């Protein structure tokens, strides 16, 4: 299903084959963020590879959400926020070379609580594309269908697209929100605790959708559920008090972390 979507996105085929197109989607260097003079991120230098799912784990106040929100400059919405350092998206400085609104289109975000708009299921997904000026009804219909398919919710809603989105269950609403994010054709999808309020089956459905989405998107997943990062991420970064303590292949982080603090956190000894 995801393959079809990419055809719609770009006839020349934008499919990013991780084997043929290697490299970094996002590179941060010495990224520092403050809120009202209080430092939330300290010298974060890392890379997010093309088409990977990067998990970011850490206890509360470790800076994981600040990190996520800096990637599409949502952090700037908080009064008193200040950023230093560099974030490159496809080699371009997101603070200097990319328009903020274009950046937020390219780097979509899914939040912890599903926030459907008080509209029909169809209109929820069509909202973004319409806002970005797409008027062709056929194109919008295609985008809605493909986005719902990619978010693994199409089969459940295809016969009730005109119903109000609030009629969906929590897990369905969250997948609808993922579909809404995908409908504006981002390159990167950020997730902030996407399954925190969901039952195990809905959680697994979203994780499965994320694995499918890997074929096209680069994804960054912030989660308090370390086992979720173990299940879906290719690499995992451990944050603690605004610093990145360790970044490694998920298999390495969860079996043989190098730093004792990582070991203690993921084995549930603090946090």
């Amino acid at each position, binding site marked *: 299903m995801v393959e079809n979507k990419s055809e719609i996105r770009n006839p020349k085929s934008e499919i990013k084959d991780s084997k043929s197109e290697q490299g970094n989607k996002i590179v941060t260097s010495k990224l520092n963020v403050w809120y009202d003079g209080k430092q939330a991120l300290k010298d974060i230098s890392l890379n997010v590879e093309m088409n990977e799912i990067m998990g970011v784990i850490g206890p509360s106040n470790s800076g994981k959400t600040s990190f996520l929100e800096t990637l599409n400059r949502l952090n700037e919405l908080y009064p008193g926020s200040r950023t230093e350092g560099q974030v490159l998206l496809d080699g371009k400085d997101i603070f200097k070379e990319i328009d903020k609104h274009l950046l937020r289109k390219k780097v979509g975000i899914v939040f912890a609580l599903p926030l459907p708009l008080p509209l029909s299921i169809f209109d929820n997904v069509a909202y973004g594309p319409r806002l970005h000026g797409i008027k062709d009804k056929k194109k919008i219909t295609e985008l809605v269908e493909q986005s719902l398919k990619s978010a693994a919710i199409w089969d459940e809603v295809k016969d009730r697209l005109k119903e109000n989105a609030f009629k969906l269950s929590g897990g369905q609403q969250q997948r609808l929100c993922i579909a809404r994010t995908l409908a504006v054709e981002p390159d990167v999808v950020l997730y902030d605790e996407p399954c925190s309020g969901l039952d195990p089956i809905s959680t697994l459905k979203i994780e499965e959708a994320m694995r499918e989405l890997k074929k096209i998107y680069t994804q960054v997943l912030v989660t308090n559920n*370390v086992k979720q990062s173990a299940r879906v991420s290719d690499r995992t970064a451990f944050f603690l008090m605004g610093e990145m303590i360790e970044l490694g292949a998920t298999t390495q982080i*969860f*079996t*043989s*972390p190098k730093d004792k603090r990582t070991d*203690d956190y993921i*084995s*549930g000894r*603090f946090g």
Partner: protein
Amino acid sequence: MINEGIRATFDQELKELSDQVMAMGITVMEMIKKSMNAFNKSDEKLAQEVIKLDDRVDKYNQDIETKCVQLLATQQPMAKDLRIIASTMRIISDIERMGDYMVDVTKFARRLMGKPKLASAGDVPKMAELVEKMLQETLDAISKKDLELITKVVEDDENVDAALRNMFDTAMLEIEKRPLSAREAIYQLFMARYLERVADHITNVCERVYYMETGELKELHV
């Protein structure tokens, strides 16, 4: 910041798991000791006891494996905890094999009971002593998390291998010189061969202990 008590129950369960592995290993040490006493003194009763002890080893194997699976399911361990449980499952299967080999050694000891002792009969208990020491040191390494001890055990395994080679040569000479004692020489050689296999399983355990502590899977046995 680290709250030592936060996983107190799980930590206690891991400790109990380790205690059970110790007890299982100590049972095999007892088997080695008793088996050699049975051999030296031609004591059938002791031989029977060794065979009975293997049932205890098998029971430990089952109980510990069950506990490991339960802990995997209920605690979903990560990082070092995960390595401890995964390694424990391998370690107990090695110790279980050691028990089986000691039964084999004892069965040959029984066959030799009442037969005239060969000149080389003392070599088998000497080898067994070395193997028992290796096992003792491995158990110490587990409880003390001592990687240096492990290196020592692996070096000792080479001595066991060398002893087997010598015993093979001796047995050949014995058979050539006194063909009528061929049967005894071969039985003894089998005992030595099984003891050497026990030593190999001990080095396997050492590799698991090394992995448990370092996260690195390394072939220590050359």
